[in-house]
């Protein structure tokens, strides 16, 4: 459980409108704006009071207006959990990658891209649609977990796209 000093350090670094600190039981929930997100991640990884060396999970969902992103971190040395929540807009879903801080984020970010079309800036495969796709076929159209996704017949997966008869 992060100490109050650590929290105040956090609040000094990030302004009130950028970061909102919240608690759920013993877990710290940090609501952050997407521009400060990368800085916060770097801070959490580097700072000895947080020492979030383990990235447990990344996920996203579709609220209809935005894609909230939900990151869960764990600190092996201090044994506490920190959750980061941030938002990206539906029109321009783009967020900084954390693969340079936690290599394990690679596939989790690719999954978010695959399902919601969220672009991770700085991801090794950013912009390369075929490489970014992970669960869906390389040439799939659209992002299936969006609430407004209409399934389209994109052809026989074995023999490429073809017209539906």
């Amino acid at each position: 459980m992060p100490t109050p000093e650590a929290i105040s350090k956090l609040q000094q670094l990030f302004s009130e409108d950028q970061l909102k600190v919240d608690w759920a039981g013993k877990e710290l929930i940090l609501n952050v704006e997407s521009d400060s997100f990368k800085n916060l991640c770097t801070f959490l990884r580097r700072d000895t009071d947080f020492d979030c060396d383990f990235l447990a999970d990344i996920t996203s969902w579709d609220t209809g207006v935005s894609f909230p992103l939900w990151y869960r971190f764990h600190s092996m040395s201090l044994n506490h959990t920190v959750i980061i929540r941030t938002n990206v807009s539906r029109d321009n879903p783009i967020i900084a990658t954390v693969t340079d801080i936690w290599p394990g984020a690679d596939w989790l970010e690719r999954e978010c891209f695959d399902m919601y079309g969220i672009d991770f800036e700085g991801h090794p495969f950013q912009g390369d649609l075929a490489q970014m796709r992970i669960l869906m076929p390389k040439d799939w159209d659209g992002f299936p977990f969006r609430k407004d996704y209409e399934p389209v017949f994109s052809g026989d997966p074995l023999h490429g796209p073809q017209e539906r008869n």
Partner: protein
Amino acid sequence: MPLTSTEISSPGMTINMGPQHPSTHGVLRLLVELDGEVVHSCRPVIGYLHRGLEKMFEARPYRQCIPFTDRLDYLAALNNNLAISQAVERVGNITVPERAQYIRVMLCEMNRIASHLVFLGTYATDIGATTVFLYAFRDREKMLDLLEMMTGARLTYNWIRPGGVPTDLPEGFEKAVRSVFEELKVTLDENNRLLTGNRIFRVRTEGIGVISKEQAIAWGSTGPVIRGSGVPYDIRKIAPYEVYDRLDFDVPVFDQGDCMARYLVRIEEIRQSMRIVEQCFKDMPDGEIMTKMPKIFRPPAGEAYSRTESPRGELSFFMVSDGSLNPVRVHVRAPSFIHLSMLPDLLKGVKVADVIAILGSLDTVLGEVDR
């Protein structure tokens, strides 16, 4: 003039391991660039089993999500049932009766034993020892018989549900469990003598696929993989759920980080799981096994997640509710998915035979990876 090795090296050969291959344990496809017998690079291709389960959850009431979780990690279906039930309970603020918690823990541990026995058998086959496979599956059959006695199914149990468990222990269950455990302890030692001390098995697994402590943490590995690298990360200890904080068990940790260490962690976990089940029988109180739940279940809006220790690692369900009948989003943090993402780094420069040894030691289940 003598030729240097770069001059005579031929262009690499790409082999396509899977989706139909005897030891990819499902529909995993590995694109392996080979230079002779040495792996140059490896790219896992997944998604062959992608059924969009997370999307299907969004179109169903909470309780109807349970059967789908059986199909995630089909070797440890009860652990998946438990994980999603916990997520639903947290999002809906439901408390579970104590007896139900004990029963849940007991069955999950029995399912863990069954799953680790499958690992023992398949891993031995990957290394080439076919006999251990049949011994391990014989023991697993006994565990499945016990689970069938309790839940009525052998693979997809669909049994743990939000609020508790549907049925109490059947008549004579404890006696059956004890007799099976007595035998399992003997056969486990037998398998140990046949495999663990075997010199060939040792040279095939020791020092192969080493994951250092730092790598294990950075890559987000969990379960036996991270414990084989010397990190005592076990959700049952660091964030106890159900009644694990009241039970006495050890978390086996090995420092070597190689295939052997991961194998030994799992073998030791079978013993610890047996300890847990025996304690559960001793400590289990009488009482309710199911909370009163409304027929139409509408949890308040919010987010919740569960963290459980499945046989493969940290299995976590993340759930978002908006107060309606169906969840808005269910996300599965599948340990196998994270473990597979380590493969390209792990497999660089190893021999073809080691690809199988390393892949087997991660013990991935493709149902969970592709979801």
